[in-house]
């Protein structure tokens, strides 16, 4: 193997480069040049340079422009000279990255973006509502069987996970409260606590969070993929409204499924509490369910179910909003899917807080 010092020869005020200049040999030679840059050099001889790639040309330009300014490159072979002519970086103006906007510009841009997003969500919501109602009476432009298919995807496929998590949730809440209530001989009130919390709060909210993560992400990914692959444009060109064709079936399906899933969640959450009551608190089957039924009112159930419908709408609207906003390729799809899930869960929790304030 040729030593670095043999590739770069300083003699008689001349620098001679020997062998190949490639992206592999250049880093070592650059170090060697830096160590010898005080040596007098009046010409750079390339007669023994057999090959240079793009990195080598850039290295030679660096030598003759920055280290030994004004020193010419002499005796280059035809092939090397050709490379020097093609890939010279001498008169090259390197583009600098664009400047980031200043603080006030960023604040202004954000404000404008927020305003635009609010308007977009408003228009999207109104169009979804319009087509959901209007579409019931006019079948043209509707995707046949889409609502049923979506009910299957959003509802049937989610029963297992919603049910399992609700039982676990019921068990946890009951266990945590049972230990405290038993000290005061008030173990029976675990049934009240579980019933009220599952029907009014935990049932609708937990189901909405599961559906936001499961179906909301799928909606956002599907719509954004359709956007970046121009499928939505294709629908428009076929005189089909993408909102009606793609979003409305999901909207109708989730409106039907969500209350049903919440019902399942409530029932299984109460069953979870019942297991704790039966095993840990030694309550009887009859006393637990009598206490549960005595504390619940129809109003509680209606509040829980009405909340679930609003949560469902929020999930679809946010997923669609982000889906339609997607740009670029796979990267864009990933970004909007993540944003959609985060925004949906946040919106569900905030909306739940608002409902709690209203129906205190």
């Amino acid at each position, binding site marked *: 193997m040729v030593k670095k010092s043999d590739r770069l020869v300083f003699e008689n005020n001349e620098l001679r480069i020997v062998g190949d200049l490639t*992206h592999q040999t250049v880093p070592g030679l*650059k170090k060697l040049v830096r160590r010898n840059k005080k040596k007098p050099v009046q010409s750079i001889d390339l007669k023994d340079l057999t090959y240079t790639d*793009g990195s080598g040309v850039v290295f030679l330009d660096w030598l003759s422009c920055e280290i030994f300014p004004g020193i010419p490159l002499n005796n280059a072979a035809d092939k090397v000279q050709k490379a020097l002519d093609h*890939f010279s*970086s001498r008169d*090259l103006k*390197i*583009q600098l990255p664009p400047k980031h906007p200043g603080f006030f510009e960023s604040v202004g841009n954000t404000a404008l973006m927020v305003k635009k997003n609010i308007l977009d969500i408003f228009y999207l919501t109104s169009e979804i509502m319009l087509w959901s109602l209007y579409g019931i009476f006019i079948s043209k432009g509707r995707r046949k069987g889409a609502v049923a298919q979506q009910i299957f995807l959003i509802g049937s496929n989610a029963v297992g996970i919603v049910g399992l998590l609700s039982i676990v949730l019921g068990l946890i809440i009951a266990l945590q409260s049972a230990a405290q209530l038993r000290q005061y001989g008030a173990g029976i009130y675990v049934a009240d606590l579980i019933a009220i919390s599952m029907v009014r709060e935990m049932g609708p909210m937990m189901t909405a969070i599961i559906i936001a993560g499961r179906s909301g992400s799928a909606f956002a990914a599907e719509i954004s993929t359709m956007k970046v692959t121009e499928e939505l444009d294709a629908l428009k060109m076929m005189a089909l409204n993408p909102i009606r064709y793609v979003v409305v079936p999901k909207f109708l399906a989730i409106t039907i499924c969500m209350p049903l899933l919440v019902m399942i969640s409530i029932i299984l959450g109460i069953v979870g509490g019942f297991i704790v009551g039966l095993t840990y608190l030694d309550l009887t089957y009859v006393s637990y369910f009598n206490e549960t039924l005595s504390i619940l009112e129809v109003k509680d159930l209606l509040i829980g179910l009405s909340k679930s419908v609003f949560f469902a709408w929020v999930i679809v609207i946010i997923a669609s909003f982000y889906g339609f906003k997607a740009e670029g*390729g796979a990267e864009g799809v990933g970004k909007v899917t993540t944003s959609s899930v985060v925004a949906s869960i946040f919106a569900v929790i905030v909306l739940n807080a608002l409902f709690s304030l209203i129906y205190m």
Partner: protein
Amino acid sequence: MSEALIKIKDIVVRFGEKTVLDDINLDIIPNEITVILGESGCGKTTLLKTITGLIKPESGSIHIFGEPFNGTDENRHNRMLRRMGVLFQNGALLNSMTVRDNIAIPLEQHSRLDPDLIEKNVAVKLKWVGLSEAAWLLPSELSGGMRKRAALARAIILDPEILFCDEPSAGLDPVTSASLDELILTIKEQFNMTIIVVSHELASIHRIADKIVFLDKGKILYAGPLKEARSCGIETVENFFKTGSF
């Protein structure tokens, strides 16, 4: 005649029950542009991906630079890959990175060059493909032709010995397509690079090809100089050059 740079022997590729490449034998000669052509679904891209190692053949061997390429250990395989560049059909630029960052990836990952030399090298290649102004744009902000030119700059940033191009002209207007062909020809002349192109654009084939490999239903119908293909006596090949389409 020069010794083959790429030697493909008895390659068979199957997807499930379907045989996509059937007993392919081919020698690619250095410093030439070889165009692989044939009708859609005949196995052109599969052949290219098999040569580059992206698809594993069921049987057969591929030797590149005189060494076995398939079935070799990962380090040796990666070392060989650094001596090759690939221009994918849609560019395959990483969407989250700017054009400049995309082109710099191979240099940053596979060389120990200082950042200033990498910067200059990238700037030279960008200028060379006519994208100096687009350095800080994202791939999603580029047109189809610009994406391909950026991808070409990335493919040649390490000055590879072999360049593979998958349908470089697909989806481009004739002017952009011709300018891309010019770039490919210049690369070949400037670097004595061996270039393998998959294409079915007749105009492009005429501009760049030294040799053609004509595939039909996974088999090679003709492999030889472009000039002789018109009168090779194989009806499908002759028809292609007569009509310019399948």
